[in-house]
Each structure stands twice: as structure tokens, then as C-alpha cells.
């Protein structure tokens, strides 16, 4: 009997050892994202050939996104400034620094990053999501992490070693960036009221429909066409920007020349880009206050007031904004859309149709270290 037990035990040990060796030796697994489907009307997207969308990379990226291990003090994760319920913003005008101060910019909303843009951050300083992913981690005021230290910490974790092995084969900074990029690419929002309207599933209210038409129209007093002029800059409002590298950056009249921050010019060196900032997605805009790159406007009403009567003229102000005026003969000495309060409220009502509650509560995008997901 004892011999039998010893034999069985030995066999079990050999089996486990074999499995462990096989698990460690085998190539990464590349399981396609199950039931992947994206709206046709969002347009074509492309994924880097060396970082395809897979279940394994998404799972790894989700864990990394929510893990404070990524910061130098092990207290700050990506999710600290990118809260799902706030469409992955943080509700602050400017996110806090590690030392208690404020960063230069507001936390950007994350949604539908699969589409469009080739430049990331408000000032376009990153040329890919993979490049973007590592910059906050290393920034001394944001997460303050040394990449070598981070890789050592991840390497020391058996769970992460396994997830990295399955997703990419090994733990590395490059693969950390790839996994975070995959998680962010999979943050697809397509269940807002407006999405359902486009699919014919719901109707807009009269006010929302009025706002939709104003949103889409450039004002033309010659033909009595009133417009909010929004689409001129926000044509990619359902996704996250333009494919062309420098399209989708604009000076929207926030500051005079003497106070205009560099913006995109800091990246390109081109003075014509001074004060240019990324035109953000408007998806979930109702939950991403405060607004603008520096969070200067607390409400959508404040934003509408700015475009209606508060445009500050500077050398690089968008001509699309400068010439958009519903009452150019009023001679008020200001630059703006000059819409009625009812029209502004209609646009705001339309903007609320872009809120995607399913996205904001999707358990697949939530913190994997908490709850039952």
C-alpha cells in the first residue's frame, strides 16, 4: 500500500513539475478578443502589428492600470487620475502631483482610443499609446517610478510573471507599455443614447434634436442657418481624435497672445502651433468636468458661455471659431457664437446624450483587485 502511495505521489510531483516547466517554456498565448465588434460608423482603426488585441494582453493591461505598484511610492495607479465612473478623468481641474501640488493639465478622458489620433496628451507629446503609457509612470510629479525598479518589482511577482508570459513572453518595460495600450484601446464606448439613436433604437427629445442640429451647423446668416459650430473642430466627437498626426489640435480662444501657453508648439517647435491643444472626444463629456486642458471651466454652461461670448483673440486662434457668429451685425465688440440661452441649453442637452452609462459601469473595465470581476 505504501509503495502505491509513494508511486502516486511521485507521479503527481512529476506531473506538476512538468506542467510548471511547460507553462514557463511555452510561447505566449494569443487569444483573440471574444466576440469583438465595433460600430462601423466610428470608422476604420488600426492596431500596431506587434501589439495585436488579445485577451491576455487586455487582462494584463487592466491589472497594471489599476495597480499602484506602477508608482514609485506604490500609492498611485493610472486609475488614480483616470476614474472609470468619470469616464477615466478625475474630476479635478488639474491632477495632483506627488508632492501635493498641481500638474499642468487636466486628466484626459479615455474612450475609443482605437480610433483616430496619432498624437496623445493635451499637447501631443506622445506619438503612440505605447509611448504615452510609460511617460506618466516615469514623470517625477505623476507616478515617480524608475522603470528598472518597476520591472524588478513585476518580475518578483509570480502572478505578473505568469500574465506577462502568457501575453508577451517576458516582463519588460516595452511589454508593460503594450499591455497598458491594449487596455486603453479596448475602452470602447458605444452605448450612449446618441449611439442608440444612430442605430434607430431610441429617439432624441425635441430639445436634444435641436441641439444636434445646432452642433452640426456652422452659422450662416446669409441663409438664416443658426449653428453652434461644434462640428468644425469636433468632427470626431464620437471617437477620440483624428488619424492625421497634427489634425485635431486647435487654439480655441482661451488666452491672449501674452499668456498663451506653448501647447503643441512645445512638440513641433512651430510658432503657428502656439496655444494649440488637443480637441478632445466629447463622449461622456457630461461627466468629465471641469473642462479645457487646464480645467478652467467648471460646467458645460461655462463652456458654452466661452464659445458664445468669451472668445479671446490671439494670433493662432482657429479661423473656424473666429468667423462663426450667429449675429455678426450686432457689433457687440466681442467674438463668439451669439446664440440664445435656449440654443445653448439645447446643445448641452445634446451633449448629455453622449453619456454612456454602460461604459462607465462596465465591469470589464473596472478595478480587478476589487469586487468580483
Amino acid at each position, binding site marked *: 500500500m505504501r509503495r502505491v502511495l509513494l508511486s502516486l505521489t511521485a507521479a503527481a510531483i512529476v506531473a506538476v513539475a512538468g506542467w510548471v516547466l511547460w507553462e514557463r517554456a511555452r510561447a505566449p498565448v494569443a487569444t483573440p478578443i471574444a466576440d*469583438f465588434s465595433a460600430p462601423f460608423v466610428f470608422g476604420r482603426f488600426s492596431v500596431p502589428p506587434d501589439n495585436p488585441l488579445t485577451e491576455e494582453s487586455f487582462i494584463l493591461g487592466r491589472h497594471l492600470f489599476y495597480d499602484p505598484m506602477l508608482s514609485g511610492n506604490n500609492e498611485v495607479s493610472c486609475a488614480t487620475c483616470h476614474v472609470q465612473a468619470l469616464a477615466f478623468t478625475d474630476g479635478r481641474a488639474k491632477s495632483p502631483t506627488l508632492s501635493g501640488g498641481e500638474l499642468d493639465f487636466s486628466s484626459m478622458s479615455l474612450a475609443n482610443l482605437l480610433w483616430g489620433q496619432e498624437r496623445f496628451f493635451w499637447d501631443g507629446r506622445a506619438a503612440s499609446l505605447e509611448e504615452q503609457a510609460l511617460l506618466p509612470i516615469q514623470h517625477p510629479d505623476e507616478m515617480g517610478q524608475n522603470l528598472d525598479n518597476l520591472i524588478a518589482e513585476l518580475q518578483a511577482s509570480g502572478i505578473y510573471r505568469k500574465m506577462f508570459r502568457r501575453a508577451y513572453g517576458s516582463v519588460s518595460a516595452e511589454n508593460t507599455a503594450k499591455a497598458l495600450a491594449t487596455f486603453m484601446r479596448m475602452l470602447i464606448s458605444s452605448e450612449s443614447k446618441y449611439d442608440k*439613436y*444612430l442605430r*434607430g433604437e431610441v429617439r432624441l427629445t425635441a430639445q436634444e434634436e435641436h441641439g444636434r442640429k445646432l452642433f452640426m451647423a456652422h452659422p450662416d446668416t446669409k441663409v438664416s442657418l443658426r449653428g453652434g459650430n461644434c*462640428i468644425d473642430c469636433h*468632427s470626431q466627437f464620437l471617437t477620440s481624435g*483624428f*488619424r*492625421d498626426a497634427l489634425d485635431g489640435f486647435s487654439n480655441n480662444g482661451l488666452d491672449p497672445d501674452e499668456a498663451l501657453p506653448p501647447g503643441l508648439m512645445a512638440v513641433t517647435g512651430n510658432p503657428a502651433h502656439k496655444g494649440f491643444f488637443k480637441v478632445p472626444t466629447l463622449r461622456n463629456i457630461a461627466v468629465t468636468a471641469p473642462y479645457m486642458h487646464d480645467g478652467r471651466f467648471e460646467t458645460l454652461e461655462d463652456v458654452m458661455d466661452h464659445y458664445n461670448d468669451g472668445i479671446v483673440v490671439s494670433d493662432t486662434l482657429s479661423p473656424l471659431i473666429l468667423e462663426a457668429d450667429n449675429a455678426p451685425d450686432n457689433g457687440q465688440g466681442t467674438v463668439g457664437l451669439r446664440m440664445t440661452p435656449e440654443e445653448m441649453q439645447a446643445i448641452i442637452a445634446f451633449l448629455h446624450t453622449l453619456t454612456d452609462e454602460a461604459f462607465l459601469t462596465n465591469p470589464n473595465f473596472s478595478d480587478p483587485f476589487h469586487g468580483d470581476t
Partner: protein
Amino acid sequence: MKFSYIAQSILIGTGLALMGMSPALAQNREESQGMVLLRGLPTLDTSHSIAIVELDPESDRFGEILSEVEQPDMEHPLHHLYYSPNGRLYSTGLDPSCSLAEIGLSRDSSGAPVISGITCLDTQGQMVGEDIMWATSNGQEYMFVTFMGGVGGDDGGTVGVFDPQTNEIVKVIEARKSQVGEGEPYIMYPHGISAFEDRMVVTSTVHPDLTTGVGNMLTIIDLNTLEPIENIVVEKEKPLNFPSSPVEVLFVRPTMHPEIEPAILANTMFGFETWKVPYDADSKSFGEAEVIYSGVANETAVPLEFYGSEDELFISHALPGVVKRYELAALPELVSSGPDIVADPGAHHMIFFTSASGRDLIAIQNNLLNLGNSADEDPTDVDFIADLNAHTISVHDLETGERIATIDFKERYNKGVDNVEGLFGSGFVHHH
């Protein structure tokens, strides 16, 4: 009808956003991809389908079917594709079991477009769907569809009014010649459709069996009441000794170009003519109809479609297979803007796009009536004029008309090609 700004944003804007890509991605430009309705040819044992085809001759994949889904099992195929202002894709159909359908589109994990399904819609018995347009009645937008067979009968024909959100039928506009009083306006075999302000026009083409009856007039519908209010006869020469059979119609209007005086243009399939009917928007009255193009005099036959660019109007003539081009600003007069674009017999629908290198192109689908070819002993052939079924798409330089390349669908896929539409919509004035 031009696409609304939102449709341009959704459809064309996303396509244009693809410009300026790296050479590697140039092969994936969607702007040059077309949606086609393919017809199974009985003698070649193929089935009806809808497909996405690469139409850029500069692409290594030129002529390749990128995605294809079989149509529902039915005798007659889907007929004509239209994008709604919100970017939903519809098709009319010739088979009574599916006279109107919505086509699902999505994207796979590579970003490639995928035809995800075909849903036949309830038309309440209306058959043989032809053209679709979205127009407003009393401030409410509707989807209007012409059904050449109507709900049946020798003088059938209806215009279906659908809720554009739910696809549910709101009203069937019907006025049979045999049932309205003498001299009262009627609708019969409606096909082409167009509108300006509160006036809509539909044509009276031919009974779907092609033998029972042929029309020769236009019907004006009051969009305030959704009732027919006037018939206008468009018939002069009868080269085939048939009634004129007006087919596609375009209500030219100032929104197409500020210099345009409103008028109806109508092509007569069997009269070979293009007609003009002036319209006075102030009095809401139509002037005398007159022929402004004679196919007999110009040795062309079976004029079909109207398409427009920013500065030109294009009219296809199935025989000998040419597309004529005119100054848009000169409408409603037809002032030539260049030599004919020589396509193939059956020249019919067209789309406009640019090649990967930025060359402006026009792709012309050459086939009429979804029918087969008697030379193949195809039982669906109705050879009433002969040789209108080239089953090709020819691609031409838009500026010079030079043919750059041709896809022969019958030779390559054993199928006919019945319709072409841009993957993101044509982005041009289309029919209406």
C-alpha cells in the same frame, strides 16, 4: 439629395480621415472600397450576395472581394443601396419576400468592415422596392421608398413612408389610375424619387413584369398632405413604340448650387430623352415639360441615373454605355462640361473617390435591370433592347474620362453586378 452634415461627418469624414496614411496602410484605404450587390447567375450556379470590393486600381487588391454575405434565399436579388443621413445602410429589393432591407455593418478586431447581416423589413405588402430618399413632411423626417409593384395589380405602385428610426411603416401613398376619378392624379409603377421644399416627384416607369404596362408621366406629391396632386406627361418620341417610361428623376434646386433655378429633370428609359419641368417655388406651380436631351438625335439610349459632384452633373446612358457630364451651375439646362466617359453597355450607377496617390476617379457599374444574358441561356434575360449586361465596373480618371481598369464580375466571380455604392456613401448628389 446631399448627405446632411452629420452624415458627411460620420461617413465621409471618417473616410477622409484615412488620408495621409503610411504606404503600408494605403492598401487599407476605405475611401476606395465599394459596396456592391452581386446577382447570382442561374446558369453559373451562383447566389445573390452583397460584398465589399476594392476599386482602387493602384491597390494590389484591386477587384478583390474583401467581405461578402449571401442575400436571403430568394429568387430576385436586392436592388439598390442607400445610406441614411445617420449612416444606416438600406437596400431595396426586387423579390416580394424582401422588398426593403436594412444591412448591418460592423468592424472586426482588425478594424476591417464586416457585413454583419441583412434584415428584411415589413413593407405591408408593398413589392419591388426601387429608390429611397429621406425628406421632411411638416417638420418630421421620413424615409420614402418607391415600390414599383405596389401591393400588386396591373396598375399598382406605391410610395411607402417609413419612420426613419424604427423602420415602421407610417403611411402607404397609393392612388390607382383605375380607382381615382377621371383626370385625377394617380401613381403607377413609381421608381425615381426626388423632392424640393414641400413638393416630391416620383416617376411612372414600368410594371415589374415588364409586359403588363409602361408609364409615361411624373406624379407630384404634396409633402404637407402626403397625397398626389398632379401628373405631368413626359413623352415625345417613341423610338421603341413604347410609352416613354420615365425612370430616374432629379429635382434640381438652389441648395445644389446657388445659381440653379428649381426644375425637375427626368430620364425616360424607353423614350431615350431627358426632360425638364420648370418649377416656380413662389406659386408652387410647374411649367411646361420639354425635352432637353434627345437620345435619338445623339445616338444614345436608356438614360438612367443622375449623380452630381460639387461642380458637375453626370447622367448614365446604358447604350452604348456612356456617362455624359454637365455644368452643375448651368442646371436645369444641360451644358456639356467635357467629353463622354465611355464605359460598358448597361452603364448605370457610379461612385467617386480618389486613388491612393490622390487621383480623382469615377467607378461605373455597367449592368441594367438585374437580368441575365440570353447568350448564356439565362432564363432571367429579357432582351428587349439587347446587350445591357456587361456585368463590369469600369474605373476611369474623373478629369479625362480615360479608362484605367475594369473588373469583370461575371468572368471573375460568375456573378452579375447590380449596384455600387461607396463604402462611406457616395458623398455626392445621388438620384434625388
